[in-house]
């Protein structure tokens, strides 16, 4: 008499999802990003991302400015790694105009770009700590970033936006006391990285928060057009610096780290290892700086021949590319900028299905998006 057959089971009850809005004003979405999550208890059933809060109309502004006038605005796309954006843009212009860059300028460009990559990955380290709930890694990362910023300020004249790399070379040569400070940075940075890793990487709580979370398989990563450390965390050893070398990268000896499982922990480890490899590149570039001049003669008003060109670089978050259509005049006809964060965010709904809310934040942090690049 106690075994009674029920007609409906729990699965048949009508389910009502609660909509939680992680608004643009939130401490953990990297920048002004909004997503509306439909949650069922603590599990997410689907999300709808809303972007555009930082849209400045950069691609439209490009059509009314000359190429040289547009260059300072390129810094502001992925503002964590501004020099790499400039490098990509200037190389696109140089390839289209047929300008050769001297070897010394190429080496200085590499030093500046890799120092900037280290800065960007230190932001990732700090933000990852905040998303997991620890406050200390953030301050450690930013204290370390100060030293790299002082170097970059000595060399390029800015801390966040530089306007240093020009068409045909770099703007100014290396100042006198730069090499001494750079050597000091190169020798102390690995020890600091070891301290950071001791604090956070082996932490069991962090590992249990990030292992097995947000797994993206290799095929899925290629399908969703991922690139950069997000792709390498899923096991594909693809780096544009090795696949299509530019600016003298084929002369330097460095490894490409890759993860195995494609979860958040692997992406974190890939970025930590990339910092070490970037330091290796800086050491090699600074060790053998060729003499020469740093800028070739470029006409005052740059006019590109008619045609179109797509040029890509390995940015801090992934592949950044410039697609320029020129009609032979002073201003481009159309400039389309391909940014990695935009493609990564489009995969967010797929990755977050079935995850907990707490995991959603951690996964978003592991994609390492920057809204300047998504919204342009």
């Amino acid at each position, binding site marked *: 008499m106690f075994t009674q057959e029920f007609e409906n089971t729990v699965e048949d009850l009508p389910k009502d999802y*609660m909509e939680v809005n992680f608004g643009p004003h939130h*401490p953990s979405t990297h920048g002004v990003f909004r997503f509306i999550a439909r949650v069922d208890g603590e599990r997410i059933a689907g999300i709808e991302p809303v972007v555009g809060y930082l849209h400045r109309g950069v691609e439209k502004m490009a059509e009314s400015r000359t190429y040289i006038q547009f260059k300072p605005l390129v810094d502001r796309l992925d503002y964590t790694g501004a020099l790499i954006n400039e490098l990509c843009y200037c190389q696109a212009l140089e390839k289209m105009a047929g300008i050769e860059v001297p070897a010394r300028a190429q080496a200085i460009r590499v030093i500046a770009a890799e120092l900037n990559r280290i800065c960007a990955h230190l932001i990732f380290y700090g933000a990852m700590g905040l998303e997991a709930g*620890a406050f*200390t890694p953030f301050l450690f990362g930013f204290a370390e970033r100060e030293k790299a910023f002082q170097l970059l300020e000595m060399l390029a004249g800015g801390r966040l936006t530089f306007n240093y790399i020009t068409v045909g070379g770099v703007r100014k040569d290396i100042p006198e006391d730069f090499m001494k400070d750079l050597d000091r940075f190169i020798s102390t940075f690995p020890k600091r990285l070891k301290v950071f890793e001791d604090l956070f990487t082996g932490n069991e*709580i962090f590992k249990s*928060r990030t292992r097995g979370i947000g797994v993206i398989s290799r095929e899925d990563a290629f399908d969703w057009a991922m690139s950069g450390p997000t792709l390498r965390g899923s096991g594909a050893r693809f780096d544009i610096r090795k696949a299509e070398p530019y600016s003298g990268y084929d002369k330097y000896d460095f490894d490409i780290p890759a993860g195995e499982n494609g979860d958040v922990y692997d992406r974190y480890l890939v970025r930590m290892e990339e910092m070490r490899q970037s330091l290796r590149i800086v050491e090699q570039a600074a060790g053998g700086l060729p003499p020469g001049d740093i800028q070739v003669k470029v006409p005052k008003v740059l006019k590109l021949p008619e045609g179109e060109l797509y040029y890509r670089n390995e940015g801090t978050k992934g592949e950044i590319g410039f697609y320029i259509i020129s009609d032979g005049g002073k201003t481009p006809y159309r400039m389309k900028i391909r940014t990695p964060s935009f493609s990564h965010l489009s995969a967010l709904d797929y990755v977050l299905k079935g995850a*907990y809310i*707490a995991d959603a*934040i951690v996964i978003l942090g592991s994609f390492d998006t920057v809204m300047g690049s998504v919204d342009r």
Partner: protein
Amino acid sequence: MIWWQVLLWALLKLVIAVGFIFITALVLIYMLRKVMGHMQYRMGPRHHGPHGVFQTIFDAVKLLGKENIIPRDVDKWPYLWAPVIVFVPSLTIFAFLPFAENIVATNIEISLFFVFAILGISSISLIMAGWGSNNKYALLGGLRSAAQMMSYEIPLILSTVGVVIMAGSMNLTEIVRAQQNIYYIVPQALGFFIFMTSALAELNHTPFDIPEAESEIVAGFNIEYSGFRFASFFLAEFVNLFIVCALATLLFLGGWHPFTNPVYGVLFFLFKTYILIFITMWIRSTFPRFRIDQFMNFGWKVLLPLSLANIFVTGAVVLIVDNIRGL
């Protein structure tokens, strides 16, 4: 004539207790900011007063002066009474904590049991705050906190049963007196570990600060509170921290042990409590937080069996040792 003397004496004890609580809360907040600051290569507050000692007072005064905002569709009774209810258990428990050999406001035979009974009341205030604020984030925070506090009260209380078995009494002063030969942290190391972990969970302290997880559900249950109501939650959290560390000192670290002189006893007791508080703040600066399901797993599947095993082993050993002594 004697009844008004009793009343006056009680009133004096009340004033001392409330004054001590507020001063402790202020000192603890300042200590947290300084300790956490130095662990992060920066200084904490430094402008008001030498090394910033008056910063907390100025912050409290600022919070008092803020506008009294009540959002539109809140559930009035839970929303308004939650900040009051969170403070009342902390004040009440101070009546039972002994600070030195005879310095205790009320000495009853089952003071440990009473302390735990009252400590459980503060969990309902978080649920009231979560429900009363008309906000989904607050609701999520409140529900998380309900689950958390309910699951961690059991290991908290069970881990002290070992101490009670060894001391033979539930009176806190008696327990301290029974630690003459050896502090209970040595035989009850497992109990100490379980007690501190469950206590951190009860207090919503990192690594268990899920109800107020700042990075996900921005400030959780106290998202709609501002001004003095927020200050009330904030102060109550620190007062509870002091209470829990004081309990740990009394139960496991021998209270005021070597000193029977009241002044030295109180000072040494406070010294030991502050060492435990420092360790809590050290943990707070270092560890990230758990996810809600990992954390419930940990509480029910790890801590609860361990505390039951602790009781079993302690009981067996005490029984055997008593029989051997009796023989």
